[in-house]
């Protein structure tokens, strides 16, 4: 049942090259290229700031709203883009799947990892914004990579599962944008996680993004970690990973025949 890790390791260079290709093509095909990676978080942050700190006010403590929004958008935009790209990755790589053998899981993984490049730009903007607002990081900052890694695992697991489902059920492509929209609203992207009533917080944390975003914010802004919430979300990620591997394994063998 387990993914053949040794084989995956043997094919690591292909993973590298496919990631490299996805990154390269993304920036080559678009007119403004790299600017997309910057525009997306900046514009979204600006809109959220305008909407939710001017009209509908959310309590964000000492953290300026743009920083509050951007910290979550980094996580959200990466997840959104990576899941979207990964879920369509087999369909857009039909010729690879039907003509060459390699561990299939490389295709959605490469698409997910390629999204990390956008993330780097967002992080640079975040650092700039933190300097601008004079936020002094605390020791909490050391845990920030943990939440990025959790995001990566979550996106990879979801992307992999959806990519497999998308081969057989093309509905995925149409349902995904809608589901993602709902997911964003259900995640504490433009509002604080503390907005939910205390007794519901652990239920809320089944949504893995709740723990990730809340934890990421705590690491950046030095607020106390809500470990139970982070714990539930992490557990949720583990479940999603297992589910993803099961689904992928079951469908993998038929890819070349039904794609």
């Amino acid at each position, binding site marked *: 049942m387990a993914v053949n890790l040794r084989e995956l390791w043997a094919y690591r*260079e292909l993973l590298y*090259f496919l990631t490299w290709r996805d990154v390269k093509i993304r920036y*080559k095909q678009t007119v403004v290229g790299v600017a997309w990676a910057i525009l997306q978080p900046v514009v979204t942050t600006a809109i959220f700031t305008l909407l939710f700190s001017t009209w509908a006010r959310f309590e964000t403590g000492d953290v300026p709203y743009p920083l509050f929004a951007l910290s979550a958008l980094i996580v959200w935009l990466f997840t959104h883009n990576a899941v979207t790209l990964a879920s369509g990755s087999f369909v857009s790589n039909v*010729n690879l799947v*039907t003509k060459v053998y390699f561990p299939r899981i490389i295709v959605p993984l490469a698409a997910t990892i390629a999204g990390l490049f956008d993330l780097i730009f967002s992080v640079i903007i975040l650092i700039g914004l933190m300097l601008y607002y004079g936020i002094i990081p605390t020791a909490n900052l050391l845990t920030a990579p943990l939440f990025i890694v959790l995001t990566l695992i979550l996106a990879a697991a979801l992307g992999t599962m959806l990519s497999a489902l998308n081969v057989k*059920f093309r*509905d995925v492509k149409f349902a995904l944008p809608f589901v993602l929209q709902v997911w964003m609203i259900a995640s504490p992207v433009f509002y604080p996680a503390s907005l939910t009533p205390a007794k519901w917080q652990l239920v809320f944390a089944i949504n893995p993004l709740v723990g990730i975003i809340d934890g990421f914010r705590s690491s950046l802004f030095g607020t106390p970690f809500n470990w139970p919430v982070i714990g539930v979300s992490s557990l949720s990620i583990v479940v999603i990973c297992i589910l993803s591997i099961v689904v992928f394994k079951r469908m993998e*063998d038929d890819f070349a025949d039904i794609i």
Partner: protein
Amino acid sequence: MQAITAKNLTKTYMLGGVAHNSLRDLITGFFGPRGPVDPMKEIRALDDISFTVNEGETLGIIGRNGAGKSTLLKVLSRITKPSSGSAIIRGRVGSLLEVGTGFHNELSGRENIYLNGAILGMKHAEIERKFDEIVAFSEIERFLDTPVKHYSSGMYMRLAFSVAAHLEPEVLIVDEVLAVGDVGFQKKCLGKMREVGEKGRTVIFVSHDMNAITRLCNRVIWLKDGRIRCDGEARTVVGEYLHEQSSVSSARRWDTDAAPGNEFARLCGVRVCDESGATISTADIRLPVGVEIEYEVFRGGKVMIPNLHFFNETGTCIFVTHDWYSGWRDKPRSAGRYKSMVWVPGNFLAEGSVYVGAALTTYMPFMLHFVEWEAVTFNVMDTIEGDSARGDYAGELPGVVRPVLEWSTDVLGK
């Protein structure tokens, strides 16, 4: 040492009904009435195939479209799983089911070499080491940094094949990839594949080009309707395959009422044979081929000259031969059955299919008693053992005839 062991390989595909392409189909299929799977909709692309390939062997796979060749290659390359049975391959497998798999139009030639190499299973260091060789082989040095979308199709194919040709797996699986590209480059590729085979690697090669198959492979498997129809020495299997493919065979008989003919004579049979007199459908290029024509004369009194017309597969008439010299040139025939025989010398016909037309003619005054344009056919094969007109050259060799001629070379000075 066996490189490939295939045991009872079976691959079935379902047509319609079973594969759900949308969630709705699945849901309605789940709740709706579910009958048994219609067995008529099951296609057996491979039906219980077993064979082994030894290390260093070059195996050709032939068969008509839909015979299961591509499915077999896909199963051996692990692209798709067999429905039952197993295929064990020892060593690193490189499969070329398509030229330029994973090439991306937006990327430059250089970038595509690395990407395609990785997709075909080459290590980064290996690509790096062979990079210059690949570029030189492809003849596209000047356009290395141009996106391949600006390449001509010829350049694109050359680059793609160059990467593939430098793949050095222990087992190489090649589909009909040589059908593309210009003739000169095809030659180069065939040569490269021969090299691979000679280096002791195992090669599996699918092609419709029977000449390429006989030139490259020592052994051929002929697939028919998903089963192995024939497995053996390349020339024999190809010969039998071609024999079955053509509607005309190398030996035919005609019944009295259906025979070509007139009130003076009719054709009874035509046959191609070797020196021992056995009927053959494939002739060794080095050996004489006999063509025998049998006919019946109903009314005596006329001089009748049998004649045979030899055509190649492009429809070009290679030559015509008349029986002028066997003593019947001016001797009227009496009623009865006759058998005439002509020998085409070895090292004369070129490789390929030969169609023979048979006729019986009276020339003074002219009267054609019968003519059957495609009476029989046979194939001429060159095994390239070095003593034919080819010598050691394995590439494309044009020409209608292929004589071994006497050469002399003098040293005029040093």
